[in-house]
């Protein structure tokens, strides 16, 4: 995978390695290829219930791999309208398809301005480069 494919252009990123994909007032959230690669072997995902309200200052869940626990932070505030139930039986989707089948939650945004606080693909690539060195 090229660096471009690893961090798709249509997404925004948090420094904590979550991505956000905007679809009108909905934001889909997942973790980046870098994060899944660091974690490896995901065995369990702990996600909030539909209807829960999440905000960027609070962890909303966690991903467990054999190696470690990875706390999840939301890129934007809002109400959870859907969680990826496939992950219950197939948590490995996060490793295999971090940007598609491995998505985590869908949020109805409260404040779209929050997207401006996130990193662009280029900024995120620079961050990863720094972490790798």
């Amino acid at each position, binding site marked *: 995978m090229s660096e471009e494919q690893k961090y798709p252009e249509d997404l925004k990123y948090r420094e904590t390695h979550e991505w956000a994909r905007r679809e009108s007032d909905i934001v889909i959230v997942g973790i980046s290829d870098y994060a899944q690669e660091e974690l*490896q*072997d995901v*065995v*369990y995902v*702990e996600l909030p219930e539909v209807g829960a309200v999440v905000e960027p200052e609070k*962890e909303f869940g*966690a991903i*467990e791999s*054999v*190696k*470690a*626990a990875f*706390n999840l932070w939301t890129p934007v505030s809002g109400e959870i309208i859907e969680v990826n139930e496939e992950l219950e039986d197939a948590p490995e989707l996060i490793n295999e398809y971090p940007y598609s089948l491995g998505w985590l939650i869908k949020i109805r945004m409260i404040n779209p301005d929050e997207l401006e606080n996130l990193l662009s693909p280029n900024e995120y690539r620079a961050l990863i480069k720094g972490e790798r060195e």
Partner: protein
Amino acid sequence: MQESLKRTPLYPIHKQLGARLIEFGGWEMPVQYSGIIDEHLTVRSNMGIFDLSHLGEIEIRGDGALPLIQKLITNDAERNLVDGRILYTPMCNETGGIVDDVVVYRFRSDRYMLVVNATNIGVDFDWICAHNDTGAEIENRSDETVLIALQGRNAPKVLRKLTNIELTTLKYFWFTEGEVAGIPTIISRTGYTGEVGFELYAKTGCGGDLWNAIYEAMARIGGKPVGLGARDTLRLEMKYCLYGNDIDETTTPLEAELDWTISFDKRDFIGRDAIIKQRTEGIKRRLVGFQMLNRSVARPHYPVYQKNQHIGAVTSGLPSPSLKRNIGLAYLPIEQSKIYTKIDIEIRGKRYPAKVVRTPFYQPD
């Protein structure tokens, strides 16, 4: 990675094999190659090769060697060792806390090798020297020694092709010296996985050749390189203690259920009085295995509760690849440590049910 991290002589090989490297006790070590679960299951079903050159080797020689070792360890090297035998033992301080857990090799009645944890090499060396009032010669040979482990049911088959040494008569916790792939090697029938296997010691300069010879023979029949990640999952399934997690200077061998390594008959060793006192009074807590009852994963330091009472902390915890369950170890008060006792583990502020279970978690066949 920090500039100051130490690397084993096999570091370039790990890079070439595509290992992911992490910092471990001041060393830059492979944590995984193909993936922790894959490596783990390969060791359980076939075999795997490990670089353990970060471990320390301290040689103790001379007429004063045995008396010094007897003073340092809780086990009995005089009664339980002969030439070619190996002994697992804690080394305690005056209060019975564990300074390190080590493996003692007896070459001759006046020559021994202590294999010690990587994180403790300096501490152990100083500790041993500080108690040397018998004039023993003590030498830290860690930097000149590579240690390669081959673990798994097919390990004897592979090693047999590389050496003339009779391996079938080499029993568990015995060692011998000879050549493997033409390289002078100490072949030890030991391991940290619960599987049949060997640990091979050689001079640093021969490390690459020894690894490559074993690697090629092993990979041909499906063996794989294994990193520290799977080393941890393999050892935890067997309830083998990890120094720094499950045992340290604040825990005693009795609490860690290492009773079998204490020789109460031995007249004197460091920590004896404290350990005997603890045995007489009875221990207050012990290291037990538990299994999560949901899919949450317990990790070291997570608090343990029973009915809202804080009763202990997790020392090791992870998903067990062989059992597909989440397992862990914790020190629990004796009265709350019986098998099937229900406990709660606090994970990210919420409590999840677990139960105390029999150990080892996994029984190799």
